[in-house]
């Protein structure tokens, strides 16, 4: 069934697909505006799984929704550009696009899977209608029959039998609904699929099954995924690279393994130490002291400094710029990395070479990883 699904001919992994530059998003306007996303730069490459990690209020969903112009009122984009690269080589700035242009590129270039599939599927419409109406809107000359065939094919891709076409969402389990959402997202073979906490509401076994299928589909069709979640430990397993957000700002971006083995930002380090391990000796861990800040009353300087155990005097006054560090295009916004030699040992671990990387199978290795947090 997959034979006639063609992945784009000239697609090569690694080209920039979606470039976000200096994006700023507010909720509300004027003096009560809340700055939900501030000056974010992010690039999604062809075929890449880019993880966007952060806690509630970090702006990760807002960023993704704003970049696709789907953010609701009172959200407003106040600065930046979002460039979408087509297969043909042409480029569109989504922030300058009009209604018609946006409608054409939606779903055919960028599709979306959101958290709770119960709410993302229309409760009074059949699965078939919801699978085929995007086809009908974007491929007007497609016959009713071939739309149906495509819907069957899509369901097959996510392991759901064709007899579910006539079902309504309430007749499916949570996992099935999320599979339908994924199938729907792939209907027009988009280059980009944005996934906003796609598995958070699911049980861990179902979550794992769906992630496996997802990565499998990505390998077959080569689309890129912007994967948004608060679960950093999950992201490290499935993402190629990860961007960490805090209070609306990007604080660190690196390849998944580099971020995991050698975090450069104290917040990333803290997050990594907020997930207890499944193996090895049990060691006390502390998480991060304090709470995420209220976006209405952000601290001065580096927004993370009140919770940072390494904070320097200047952190309270100056916001650190997002600066390149190490190799592989990783960036970090932290004064501790200026210069990198001055960083505390926990934040200066050697980066793993991707080729030379070997699984640290021993319990000792894990203990060492966690040692930093045991303070």
């Amino acid at each position, binding site marked *: 069934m997959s034979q006639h699904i063609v992945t784009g001919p000239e697609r090569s992994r690694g080209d920039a697909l979606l470039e976000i530059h200096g994006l*700023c998003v*507010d*909720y509300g*306007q*004027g003096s009560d*505006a*809340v*700055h*939900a996303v*501030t*000056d974010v730069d992010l690039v999604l490459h062809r075929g890449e799984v880019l993880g966007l990690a952060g*806690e*509630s*209020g*970090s702006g*990760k*969903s*807002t960023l*993704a*929704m*704003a970049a696709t*112009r*789907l*953010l*609701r*009122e*009172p*959200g*407003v*984009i*106040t*600065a930046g550009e979002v460039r979408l690269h087509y297969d043909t080589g042409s480029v569109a700035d989504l*922030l*300058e696009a009009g*209604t018609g242009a*946006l409608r054409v590129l939606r779903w055919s270039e960028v599709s979306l899977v*959101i*958290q709770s599939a119960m709410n993302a599927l229309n409760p009074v419409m059949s699965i078939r209608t919801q699978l085929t109406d995007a086809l009908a809107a974007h491929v007007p000359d497609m016959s009713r029959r071939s739309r149906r065939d495509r819907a069957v094919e899509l369901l097959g891709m996510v392991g759901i039998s064709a007899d579910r076409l006539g079902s309504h969402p309430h007749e499916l389990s949570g996992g099935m609904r999320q599979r339908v959402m994924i199938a729907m997202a792939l209907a027009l073979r988009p280059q980009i699929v944005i996934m*906003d*906490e796609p598995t*958070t*509401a699911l049980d861990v076994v179902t979550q794992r099954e769906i992630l496996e299928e997802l990565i499998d589909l990505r390998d077959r069709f080569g689309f890129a995924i912007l994967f948004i979640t*608060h679960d950093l430990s999950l992201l490290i397993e499935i993402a190629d690279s990860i961007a960490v957000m805090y209070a609306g700002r990007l604080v660190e971006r690196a390849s998944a393994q580099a971020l995991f083995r050698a975090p450069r930002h104290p917040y990333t380090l803290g997050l990594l130490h907020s997930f207890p391990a499944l193996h090895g000796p049990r060691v006390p861990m502390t998480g991060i002291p304090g709470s*995420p800040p*209220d*976006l*209405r009353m952000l601290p001065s300087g580096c927004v993370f400094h009140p919770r940072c155990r390494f904070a320097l005097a200047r952190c309270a006054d100056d*916001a650190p710029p997002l600066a390149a560090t190490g190799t592989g295009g990783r960036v970090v916004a932290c004064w501790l990395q200026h210069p990198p030699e001055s960083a505390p040992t926990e934040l200066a671990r050697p980066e793993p070479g991707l080729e030379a990387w070997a699984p640290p199978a021993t319990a000792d290795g894990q203990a060492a990883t966690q040692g930093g947090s045991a303070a």
Partner: protein
Amino acid sequence: MAVGIGTDRATGAASAPGSLPAAGGRSRAWRLPRSPKIIVGLVMLAVFVIIAIIGPLIAPYNPNVSFANSSVPLPPSGAHWLGTTALQQDVLSQLLSGGRSTLLVALIAGVIATALSVIIGVTAGYLGGLADDVLSMLANIFLVMPALPLLMILFGFLGHSSADNDLVVALVISITGWAWGARVLRAQTLSLRNRDYVDSARLIGESNWRIIGTEIVPNLVPVIASSFLFTVLYGVGTYTAIAFLGYVNPDHWSWGSMLFYSQEVNAETSGYWWWFVPPGLAVAFLGTSLALLNFGIDEFVNPRLRAAGLSGHPSRRTRGRTRQSFGQTAVIRADRGRP
């Protein structure tokens, strides 16, 4: 009126697009609602309350006195600002005298019906089980039965004389008016009953009555207020209808009875608009003030209902050029002084 809303709840770790970390939403629960709807509604209602209290005193004439023998109503003039009726009575004086009974009956009916609906609705919702089944059934029956025919058959048998008594009229109106509030309150109580903070109160050993009194009913205040306003609105309409049908003692001036007399001589087909328009508008605006307040409470309970143009202060800049439209986030380039 410090009221918090059960529906107002942050979503915790799950950050839905567009939902802020709930700080703003939560503090809202403690502020006196100040929407334009509520202010306009309150001002209008205040005017009517003042008319009800001092209206009969400031009426220029005795509403019962005829000034002439002519049977042709006179249009508005310097002597009679709102003209006269077919009996040559002063319309303005009748209008000013007619507010009191309308408001009083509606108020009494509202209080009785709301009390009934709170008792029945909260009991049904909190107790659940058979009590709920029976009480909900009762409420639904009263909801489905058309009220006016029921009132008419009641007044038909009671005879017109009984309708002189404001209290009897209010009582009869409240019998047909409690069910809506009871149904809404039952549904709200049902959802509150399963709230974690009710379970928490139970867990520390609070008694049922204490839980109803301190955990459930205070959170129902907006719903009760809305149900009360709705019943008063219903009372105004129903009392006016009954008076319009002529079941209220003719000596008892109300806006409804003014409409009754104007209808008796076909004022509407004779062009005597000054006779029926003032009482009709008075009823309509009194109702509007109550409905606006109700609308305000709804918006307060569910802020999403707010009309963007009437609440808050949208930036003038955006209104001209980029209107927010669904599925297309506005881009308003602004220098916000980046850090």
